[in-house]
């Protein structure tokens, strides 16, 4: 069907991209790069460290390039394309070594996998490297599940948790499915659904400060449904949502809290009460 590429003109009428095919996963590599993400770096570093430990436990050597910074997402979603591109280029150069990149955040992984193509749309040469990075990028739970094919023994006490998945992680990376399956491997963990589970927590990066009233209403609903789920805590694989949800819970003087999935998983499989 050469007709699919009927027209190379930039002003040609567009159709939606073809549906993504199920991803095929490579064998477990010997080494990977961890891209920590800026929010984890500054606010949830233990989660990043727990991600490293989880990977090392699978016999993988983890690199953490000290030159890494933000993936560029905040500027991109705010409309500052040039600024996003400069920051993205720095990360792209840094990660240009062929190693798989594991990201403990669905939205930043989604930035690499989906949005760098749009960020560099006008640079055909860069796009080749962007595609290469996209191919090598894995969200942490996806990597543990499908590449490491983890086989875990749950060393923790019985518990009940709720899982929150960020929207980009859900819609761009299917993280909710991966995380559910991973949690399903833990014999003593009961995952409880919560009301409007697939709805956004209201973070949306700069949305939370540009539209604080609407964002606030969303996070209030989200924290309520999490609290009412019957879970004793919430886990999530996204730092942004965690910052939003925990910040709101604290403001409300609620005891209920969320934590990063990496820390939760490490605690269950290592038997250490870490964070």
């Amino acid at each position: 069907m050469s007709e699919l590429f009927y027209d190379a003109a930039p002003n040609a009428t567009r159709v939606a991209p073809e549906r993504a095919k199920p991803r095929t996963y490579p064998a477990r590599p010997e080494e990977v790069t961890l891209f920590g993400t800026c929010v984890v770096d500054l606010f949830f570093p233990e989660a990043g460290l727990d991600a490293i430990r989880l990977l090392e436990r699978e016999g993988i050597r983890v690199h953490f390039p000290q030159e890494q910074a933000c993936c560029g997402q905040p500027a991109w979603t705010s409309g500052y394309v040039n600024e996003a591109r400069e920051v993205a280029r720095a990360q792209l150069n840094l990660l240009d070594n062929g190693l798989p990149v594991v990201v403990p955040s669905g939205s930043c992984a989604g930035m690499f996998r989906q949005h760098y193509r749009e960020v560099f749309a006008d640079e055909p040469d860069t796009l080749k490297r962007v595609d290469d990075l996209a191919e090598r990028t894995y969200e942490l739970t996806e990597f543990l599940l499908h590449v490491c094919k983890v086989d875990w023994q749950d060393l923790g006490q019985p518990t009940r948790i709720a899982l929150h998945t960020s929207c980009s992680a859900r819609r761009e990376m299917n993280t909710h499915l991966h995380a559910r399956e991973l949690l399903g491997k833990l014999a003593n963990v009961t995952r409880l659904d919560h009301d409007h589970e697939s709805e956004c927590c209201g973070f949306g990066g700069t949305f939370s400060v540009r539209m604080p009233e609407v964002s606030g209403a969303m996070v209030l609903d989200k924290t309520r449904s999490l609290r009412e789920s019957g879970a004793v805590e919430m886990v999530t694989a996204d730092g942004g949502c965690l910052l939003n949800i925990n910040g709101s819970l604290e403001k409300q003087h609620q005891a209920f809290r969320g934590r990063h999935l990496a820390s939760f998983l490490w605690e269950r499989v290592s038997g250490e009460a870490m964070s």
Partner: protein
Amino acid sequence: MSARSNILNKLRAGLAGTSPRPDDFDESLVTRPWQYAPEDRITRLRSLMEAVHTEVHQLTRAEWPARVQLLLEQRGLSNLLYAPGTEHGRQLAEHWRHSAAKPDLLVYDRPVEDWKEELFWNVDASITGTVGGIAATGSLVLWPDRHEPRLMSLLPPLHIALLRASEVEDNLYGMMQKQNWSAGLPTNLLLVSGPSKTADIEQVLAYGAHGPKELVVLILEDA
């Protein structure tokens, strides 16, 4: 410059240097999920139409006029708008004569302007034919004409529609192809899938918004 040429010129400028998208219409996407064994077509149509408050009866060609009479009498209706110029109209009139049925038979035999007031307020029921039914969506196809004008199926609170069992198609696409709609459509072609309804207040379903409050479909077996 006229508005027409301004608009068209702007659109053409936007497409400069491009070629039209290919026609990749895949008819299997609108036919394959909506195919039924012949004996299931009526069942499907019935269940969908009944789900939206349509009363459906299956009967023979000999039986239906008596059923119409019964439907009207049960409801205590005083008149019925029908089309004497059609085959089913003649059959109905014949029955009415023989059985001395009470409801008056009314005829849509003059332009709407000549009897608007009466047509809008005083007609209790109407009976029309259909040119077919669609199993996939539970729909009737109406093709209004001089004998059965457009408003005949819309204004009376009760609309009775005759559907031949043999004219039920699987899906809309099949119906279009079979009747070759693209070769020529009437001034007004209608798909009717139940009585008039609305959910505009609190999403509560209410029937009889502007059109018929009741739709009765008489499915005529060929036997």
